[in-house]
């Protein structure tokens, strides 16, 4: 619909044009002032209608390629030239025609001429508008306004001063100037296209010049004297701007393209490199490490045009020749040996590559032995500097790998490194999730194994708290009434975190429950526990423990410490708080009979009102939330007991817990904290 309305403008413009031409043929009208005025009005309307049509036409035109646009313009240009030259040739050949025919022919060629320039002028808008912005659209629109104003200069019978057309020319030139240099399409031209366009532009420039020549010559020469008062082109600002704009654009495009040509190869190379990187990274990021490495080798092999090669892929610190190309394993071994491959990979300063440009000269290979003459070794390190693999490329001639090729390979390797890093990160994420799950299990195990409440006992009160941390560990405490007068208490900590620590804690509970039945002396308990634990604990783990055996009948307790935090003891008789200092080694550190030498048993007399505080390292090592980052420490704990020793076990426990939480402000999330308070109430 739009197209049809638009065509009406062309029809209207054309009609108006020919109507005015008829007026000229009908000489009388053209000779009167009034007639001239009317005829020029028709011309103006015709110009505006044409301008409108072409502007709309170019907007809706579907050609976007510079090549297509120039082909169209060129074809049109040749036809126009052929037609426009007719009146000129006729004049030259002295072929006399009647006045009417002369006018018709001249008018027709002038009309085609008008169409060509308007078409070209407006179609170039498409080129100018490549990667357009609002400024460029505004510039174009204001140029159109100037053109409409310029068409008014054609009005006859109205006395214009000379300044008006000059002013319009200046305005038009200012509007045109930025548009002329809108030649971004040049940068988008590919390969041979540039040469074709350059040729097009050269031909167009020639036609353009010839047409201008015709315009100037035909106006000033043959026809002006013959009573056709003023041709529509004479002092025609409208046409002047259009022709000027088109010519200037041709010239600017031609020159810029010409100067751009020597640079274009560089830019194109970069473009193709970027493209190949993108392609490589696309392939690389989809697959696993092994496949990525395989792909990397193939890419390096192909781009360097190598004759042979192999690569080593390293899994768990062991290298394995995975892939070979045109080379025997025996030759690989021989070569590796001679160049000192092993040593090369162990050099501290990690180099990106090792190039052997002339293998024969350095006596790495001999004539008739192997055809290889140059070697490039590319070690591939991961982000954390561990060797992932090695790519070796061989060529049958010396100096086969120049700096450019090496750099290209290195950039491929960098791409691959990113892929390896990605895989690593994905793995880590999965592991993190697994770890979280593990922690959950560990927390549940811990909750199930540690007594959460204590029954009312005759001789003492027991209270405890256990705060699980984010990285749950293996804190453990338990008690057992052996008979009416004896009770065993144990507190321990398995080194390490997570499900494994919780698992060992469960084992510890089993051992504790079994050994307790034997009524062993405290130090023997630890020796037995060490023996049992040594068989089932990994070498890098150990357990710290304190075992206490209370004998309320004899009013004392014996204890043995296995590397655990010392007992905090309040002696009610002397009203004194102290840590019980002694020697004792952790369980699982020494896994033979000599462990006996490293444990001691101590006996302490009990009094009514005595308080025994057992705790794990999470308590004393809990960090403060202040900037000092100091630990809660032994002294604070001691002060706590000093202040609250007259209160009940449950209250003391709560006080310690409150003080600790206030000190760390809930920041203590790296280690578990367990505290057990025993208060003697009756003996």
């Amino acid at each position, binding site marked *: 619909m739009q197209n049809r309305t638009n065509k009406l403008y062309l029809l209207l413009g054309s009609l108006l044009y020919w109507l005015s031409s008829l007026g000229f043929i009908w000489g009388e009208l053209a000779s009167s002032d009034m007639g001239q005025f009317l005829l020029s009005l028709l011309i103006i309307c015709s110009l505006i209608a044409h301008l409108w049509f072409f502007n709309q036409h170019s907007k809706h035109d579907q050609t976007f390629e510079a090549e297509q646009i120039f082909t169209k313009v060129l074809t049109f240009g040749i036809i126009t030239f052929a037609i426009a030259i007719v009146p000129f040739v006729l004049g030259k050949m002295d072929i006399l025609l009647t006045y009417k025919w002369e006018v018709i022919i001249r008018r027709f060629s002038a009309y085609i001429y008008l169409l060509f320039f308007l078409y070209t002028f407006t179609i170039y808008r498409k080129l100018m508008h490549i990667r357009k912005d609002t400024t460029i659209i505004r510039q174009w629109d204001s140029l159109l306004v100037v053109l409409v104003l310029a068409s008014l200069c054609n009005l006859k019978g109205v006395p214009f001063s000379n300044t008006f057309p000059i002013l319009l020319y200046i305005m038009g030139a200012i509007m045109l100037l930025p548009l002329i240099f809108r030649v971004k399409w040049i940068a988008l031209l590919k390969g041979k296209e540039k040469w074709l366009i350059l040729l097009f532009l050269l031909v167009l420039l020639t036609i353009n010049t010839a047409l201008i020549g015709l315009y100037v010559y035909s106006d000033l020469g043959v026809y002006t004297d013959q009573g056709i008062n003023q041709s529509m082109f004479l002092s025609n600002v409208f046409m002047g701007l259009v022709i000027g704009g088109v010519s200037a654009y041709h010239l600017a495009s031609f020159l810029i393209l010409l100067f751009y040509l020597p640079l274009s190869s560089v830019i194109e190379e970069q473009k193709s490199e970027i493209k190949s990187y993108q392609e490589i990274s696309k392939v690389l990021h989809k697959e696993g490490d092994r496949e990525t490495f395989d792909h990397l080798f193939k890419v390096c092999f192909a781009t360097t045009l190598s004759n042979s090669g192999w690569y080593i892929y390293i899994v768990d610190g062991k290298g394995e020749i995975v892939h070979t190309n045109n080379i025997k394993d025996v030759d690989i071994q021989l070569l590796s040996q001679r160049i000192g491959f092993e040593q090369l990979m162990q050099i501290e300063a990690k180099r990106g590559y090792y190039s052997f440009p002339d293998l024969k000269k350095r006596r790495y290979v001999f004539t008739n032995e192997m055809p290889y003459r140059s070697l490039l070794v590319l070690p591939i390190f991961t982000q954390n500097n561990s060797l992932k693999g090695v790519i070796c490329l061989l060529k049958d001639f010396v100096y086969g790998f120049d700096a450019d090729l090496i750099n290209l390979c290195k950039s491929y390797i960098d791409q691959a490194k990113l892929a390896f890093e990605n895989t690593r990160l994905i793995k880590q994420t999965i592991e993190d999730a697994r770890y979280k799950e593990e922690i959950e299990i560990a927390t549940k195990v811990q909750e199930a194994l540690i007594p959460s409440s204590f029954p009312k006992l005759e001789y003492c009160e027991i209270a405890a708290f256990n705060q699980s941390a984010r990285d749950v560990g293996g804190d453990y405490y338990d008690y057992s009434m052996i008979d009416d007068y004896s009770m065993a208490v144990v507190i321990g900590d398995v080194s390490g975190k997570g499900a494994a620590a919780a698992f060992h804690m469960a084992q510890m509970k089993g051992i504790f429950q079994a050994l307790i039945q034997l009524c062993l002396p405290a130090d023997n308990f630890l020796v037995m526990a060490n023996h049992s634990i040594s068989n089932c604990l990994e*070498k*890098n783990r*150990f357990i710290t423990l304190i075992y206490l055996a209370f004998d309320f009948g004899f009013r004392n307790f014996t204890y043995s410490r296995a590397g655990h935090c010392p007992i905090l003891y309040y002696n009610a008789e002397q009203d004194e708080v102290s840590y019980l200092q002694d020697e004792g*080694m*952790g369980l699982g*550190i020494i*896994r033979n009979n000599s462990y006996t030498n490293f444990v001691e048993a101590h006996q302490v007399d009990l009094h009514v009102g005595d308080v025994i505080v057992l705790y794990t390292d999470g308590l004393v090592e809990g960090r403060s939330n202040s900037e000092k980052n100091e630990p809660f420490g032994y002294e604070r704990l001691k002060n706590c007991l000093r202040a609250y020793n007259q209160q009940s076990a449950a209250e003391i426990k709560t006080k310690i817990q409150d003080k600790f939480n206030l000190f760390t402000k809930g920041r203590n999330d790296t280690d578990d904290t367990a505290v057990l308070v025993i208060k003697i109430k009756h003996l």
Partner: protein
Amino acid sequence: MEIRQYFNEGLLTLAIEGDLDAASSIEMDNVIKAAYVGQKYHILINCKLLNYISSAGLGVFISYLEDFKAQRGSFVFFEMNEEVYGVFELLGLHNIFNIVKTETEAKNLLNT
């Protein structure tokens, strides 16, 4: 944590800087494993810049204790700060590891 390695006169010195915790104990383990594989059984450990050692960090040394002993080798720790020494002492480890004040003492200990 950072571990610097020096090897001269048949003695391997490891200078540990920072915190030796669960995360960094993996690296420590690798270093000691490499020393063992490389038959470097006499190891001096410079603890001057060691701020903190966790049970996992201790576990590394404990786990290699027997292996090195079997090769008549040993670990000698020197310039250990009080806090770290406290951890060793608490666990009774000062009885089984050689902990001395200075590097010279440590070297003398290994040479005799």
